[in-house]
Structure formats: C-alpha cells, structure tokens
C-alpha cells in the first residue's frame, strides 16, 4: 500500500476540525437577507411626526440607512446613541417605526434625540413584513436608487459601523460623485 494513503485520515480530520472550528464562531440567528440587490419595497404609510403620507419615492436620492425600530425594543435603546452620532456626522438615516404605538414613538423621539430624517409609521407591520424583518433592530443600507445593498440584523455599535457599514456607505456616496 502506498504511504500517502495513510495520510488520508489525518487530512480528513484536519478538514473537519477547520470546518467545525469556523462553525463555533458563526451566529446561526443571522440569516442572509433575501432582499439584497433588490429594490426597497413599495409602501404608502403615514409619517410618525405629522401623519403626512410617505412613499418609497421619499427615500430616494441619497444613499441611506433605513433603521427598523420600536419603543418596545430594548436593543433599539442601546443602538440609539450610535445612530444619533452618525446622524450628526451627516449620515442619512430613515426610520421605520415597526409595530409600535405612535404616541410612544413620539415621546421616545422627544425624550432622546431624533436622528431620523424621516420616520415611517408601520403600526401594522406591513412594510416590516415586506422587508423580511424578524426582529428589531434591523438596518438596511440602500443606494440613491432605493436598491437594498446590505442588511444588518441587531444593534449597530461603533465596531459594526466601522468594520461593516462605514465602508459600504462611503462606497455608495463615492459612487454618486462623478
């Protein structure tokens, strides 16, 4: 029998080890979004602040973050200061107030700070359903034509912004410049 055949179990073992080791650090609750590179869904919903009707067209023109949040969502409270900071740096952020009571949402925006340029009142969760939202906070990165380029499930903190979103966002901003 040839010598190299004896190495096969070792190679198989190493392959398995690498595979399983990688699996230790994957988050099974993070699902790939089915909506990447697809247009942001159409909607017609009132604004949180004044009830003015909003549609998909209101989100176009600039690359932006679309943040799905709710006052019932504890993690959104953690994320809020980071969004505020980003908004101050000039990042365009739109909000989707998902399955919330509008009065509560208004109070939240008054008590804390309002980093959103627009806030969509999705009380029934219909836009959330079309976005495939399964837990707030979720944040979509859209380009100026309203195509979804990236989705982040969970809290955006400094690290997530720096390592994942900032580069992509800057890329989209640069795309717009001739």
């Amino acid at each position, binding site marked *: 029998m040839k010598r190299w055949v004896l190495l096969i179990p070792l190679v198989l073992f190493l392959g398995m080890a690498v595979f399983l080791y990688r699996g230790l650090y994957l988050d099974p609750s993070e*699902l*790939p979004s*089915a909506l990447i590179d697809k247009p942001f869904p159409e909607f017609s919903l009132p604004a949180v602040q004044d009830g003015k009707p909003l549609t998909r067209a209101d989100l176009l023109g600039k690359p932006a973050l679309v943040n799905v949040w709710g006052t019932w969502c504890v993690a959104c409270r953690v994320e809020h200061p980071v969004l505020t900071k980003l908004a101050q740096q000039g990042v365009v952020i739109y909000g989707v107030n998902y399955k919330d009571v509008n009065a509560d949402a208004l109070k939240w925006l008054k008590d804390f700070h309002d980093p959103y340029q627009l806030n969509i009142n999705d009380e029934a*969760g219909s836009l959330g*359903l*079309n*976005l*495939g939202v*399964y*837990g707030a906070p979720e944040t979509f990165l859209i380009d100026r034509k309203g195509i979804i380029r990236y989705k982040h499930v969970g809290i955006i903190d400094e690290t997530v912004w720096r390592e994942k979103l900032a580069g992509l966002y800057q890329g989209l901003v640069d795309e717009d410049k001739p």
Partner: protein
Amino acid sequence: MMRLLAAAVLALSCTGIAHAAIDAYTFRDDAERARYSQLTRELRCPKCQNQDIADSNAPIAADLRKEIYRMLGEGQSNQQIIDFMVDRYGEFVRYKPELNAHTWLLWFGPAGLLLGGVLLIGVIVVRRRSPRAEEADVLSDEERQRLAHLLDKNHE
C-alpha cells in the same frame, strides 16, 4: 351494541370540536384548513429557528400565520404563498428548500457520504481478498520444489 356505537360517534364528534377550538381562524372548507395546516408546518419561524410557524408563539410567527390565512382567502396557490415567504425571508424559511446551487449539498450530502462509505468498504474488502487468493494459488517453481522436498521429507 347500539349504545357503544353512539358513544363512539359522540367521542369522534368531540375531537372535531376540540380541533376547531384551537384555530382562531374560520375556513371555507376542510381543504382550505388542511392547506393552512400544511403550509404553517412547512414554513420555519425566522425568529425561533427550530420551530415551524404553526408551533411558534413568536409575534412574527403569528404575523406570518395571519398572512397565510389572508392569502388563502384570496385564493392564492400554495406555491404562490411559499414564493411570497421565500422572497422576503429567503430559502431559509422552508423546511424543504428548493434544489439549487446553494442547497444541493443539503439534498445529496448524506446520500453521497453513505455511497462513498459503501464504495470504500467495497474497495477494502476486494483488495484484502485478492492478494491472498493469488498467494495461495500461484507458487513459483522454486517454491514448488521446496514444497515437494518438504513433503517428501515428512513421508520418510
């Protein structure tokens, strides 16, 4: 006998009532109810990942159940409803994902491993058997002479 039959019928009708009480939705007919129950069992809850949406108490599962009920009411086909869910939540929501470039390993991996194992065992068994058989059958001239010599010696 009659009494027994009556009791059986009564018992059966009771289970019918119990079933209806679980579902908050009313359906046009049993076929639609069956489709609803099939669909909610075939789709996985995106939030609580190892439960189907029939089984899960998560708000998102309730929303999806409501959505399925609505779509059934609109007369959409099972395929349309599943496509609707997959468009939003990805292939992940199906317990039986479609066969494509991403999922072929899921579908054929186990069978492939089994087949590979059987082949490997087959090869090992055949290899082990054949060299011994050859050794037993074929002796070189030198060996034959030696064998004859040894046998002669023993006879003496």
